[in-house]
């Protein structure tokens, strides 16, 4: 049964760009981007249970890495992938440095990482154009073709993130990360190399947002530090995963779809108080989440999902 649903969704996703107008296409591309960000975050936040607010840092670094490469003549697909690689290296180094921290300390370290990167990008004017931002080479294709190109690019990244999530969920890495999330002290006693597993999860949580950043830079053609390092890029994916169901494979995707739909409706009519409304949405989601996530916390979602899939698949 689930296999039928997967095939149907894939068909719709592939056919969409040829049917939808540019507004719906832009919305769909944004949803795919945030799905990739949410799925990325889930590796460290959902699986390992580490409260990471680093997605904005990875996204921003990917945007600038991709952007700078393109201004140096590197073709788009290569620039995107290189951006992903650069961000992965950065995440592995940062992970090794801060993953001994837990709880609030780790959260603050990741929050501040984005701030430091934004400041560094701001002051490296010759490389990044600093505060005035960076213009990327304009594409020669017409508007619709461009819209479809970026839609498919984001679709590929989101699909890759989803596939990796499914793979990790059933692997030793996934099992080890879940042990770390449940009780890290007991996990290391069972022989799990918790340091290496956490760094791998942190790097996975970086590479997808990094590539998305690169694609975003090409898509919007002009980026500046406050835009691509915006802390909302760290918070929105978290709220989406909480909304869709943390620690589950598809949680982030459902969450991204529902959240952006809600934000689009809100945006339509209350432009100037948009961010304030967003605050109210976040507060309500956290306080009154349908899954009653607050009390139980992330893990029980995991085991309930496991029960469901075990019953579903023969």
């Amino acid at each position, binding site marked *: 049964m689930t296999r039928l649903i997967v095939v149907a969704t894939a068909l719709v996703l592939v056919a969409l760009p040829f049917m939808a107008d540019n507004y719906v296409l832009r919305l769909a591309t944004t949803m795919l981007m945030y799905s990739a960000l949410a799925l990325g975050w889930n590796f460290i936040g959902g699986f390992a249970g580490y409260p990471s607010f680093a997605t904005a840092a990875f996204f921003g670094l990917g945007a600038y890495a991709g952007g700078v490469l393109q201004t140096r003549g590197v073709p788009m697909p290569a620039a995107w992938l290189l951006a992903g690689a650069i961000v992965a290296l950065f995440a592995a180094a940062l992970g090794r440095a801060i993953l001994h921290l837990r709880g609030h300390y780790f959260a603050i370290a990741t929050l501040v990482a984005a701030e430091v990167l934004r400041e560094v990008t701001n002051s490296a004017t010759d490389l990044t154009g600093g505060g005035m931002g960076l213009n990327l080479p304009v594409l020669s294709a017409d508007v619709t073709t461009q819209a479809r190109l970026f839609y498919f690019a984001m679709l590929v990244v989101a699909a890759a993130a989803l596939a990796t999530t499914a793979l990790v969920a059933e692997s030793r890495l996934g099992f080890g990360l879940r042990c770390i999330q449940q009780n890290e002290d007991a996990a290391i006693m069972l022989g799990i190399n918790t340091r290496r597993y956490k760094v791998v999860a942190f790097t996975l949580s970086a590479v997808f947002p990094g590539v998305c950043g690169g694609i975003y830079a090409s898509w919007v053609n002009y980026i500046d530090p406050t835009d691509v390092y915006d802390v909302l890029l760290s918070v929105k994916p978290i709220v989406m995963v909480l909304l869709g169901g943390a620690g589950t494979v598809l949680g982030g995707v459902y969450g991204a779809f529902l959240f952006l739909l809600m934000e689009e409706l809100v945006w339509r009519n209350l432009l100037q108080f948009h961010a304030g409304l967003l605050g109210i949405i976040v*507060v309500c989601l956290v306080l009154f989440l349908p899954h009653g996530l607050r009390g139980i916390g992330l893990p029980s979602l995991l085991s309930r999902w496991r029960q469901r899939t075990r019953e579903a698949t023969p």
Partner: protein
Amino acid sequence: MLYVQVLVNGLVLGGLYSCIAVGFSLVWGVLNVINILHGSLIILGSYAAFFAYQYLHIDPFLFVPAAAFLLFCLGYAIQLVFINRVMGSPVLITLTLTFGLNLLLYNLMILAFKADFRKVILSPPLGSANLGGIVVPIDRLIGMAFAIALVGLLYALLRGTRIGRAIVAVRMDREAAQLMGVNVGRIYAITFGLGAAMAGAAGSLFSVMFPISPETANALLGKAFVICILGGLGSVPGVMVGGLTLGTIESYSALFFGPEYSVTISFSLLILLLMFRPTGIMGRRGFQ
């Protein structure tokens, strides 16, 4: 001589900084909640002082207790209505909640006060004092004195009073505190209220010395992060040490690298601290 002047500037600034961070450290240390609202609460205190001065002609320094009381009530209500419902939840939930609340408060302030900068201009400006060649603006000197007095007051309250002991007891073992007859929900609200009161008081002092606008809220929050981790969580003296250290570092970095780098330097310092000494200079278990 220049170095001494820069040191004095740093210490004076640091005194004020410790008042900015002590409320944040109390809420984090006792309630285990990262209060993303803290920067906005300080700015709210500044606006209260600004309007009190403009319309009621109350000197911001005299307005400090009023600002503290107003913010105490707001803080008490925020904790009771919102945050008490998620106490004990994972870090992710409490952090995201205070983030959402801040988005709301921050944008309400932008709506109400617009984004332009405002500053209290005292009609007889206090000018500055010259202590043996060292020039120090008097308003900052008074501000520092107030700040240190406030921090000392909080320290005394936590150590010496019944409510203070209850706050520390709740931090160390919530259930055991309940068994002693402590109403934990009320103590949480009082603690968050105290944190907000310190923010309000700092805001009132701040309004005299620096231009204020909702924009500066995030920078103040960032400073609170650095000071808490630098000084060490769970100790009021630690916050004092953290504040003075940051003030000194920032004034020297402004001298050598230029003022625009001070945030980058303080945040890089924060990352280095988190890597090598997350407990900070005076971190400890209880909360003095």
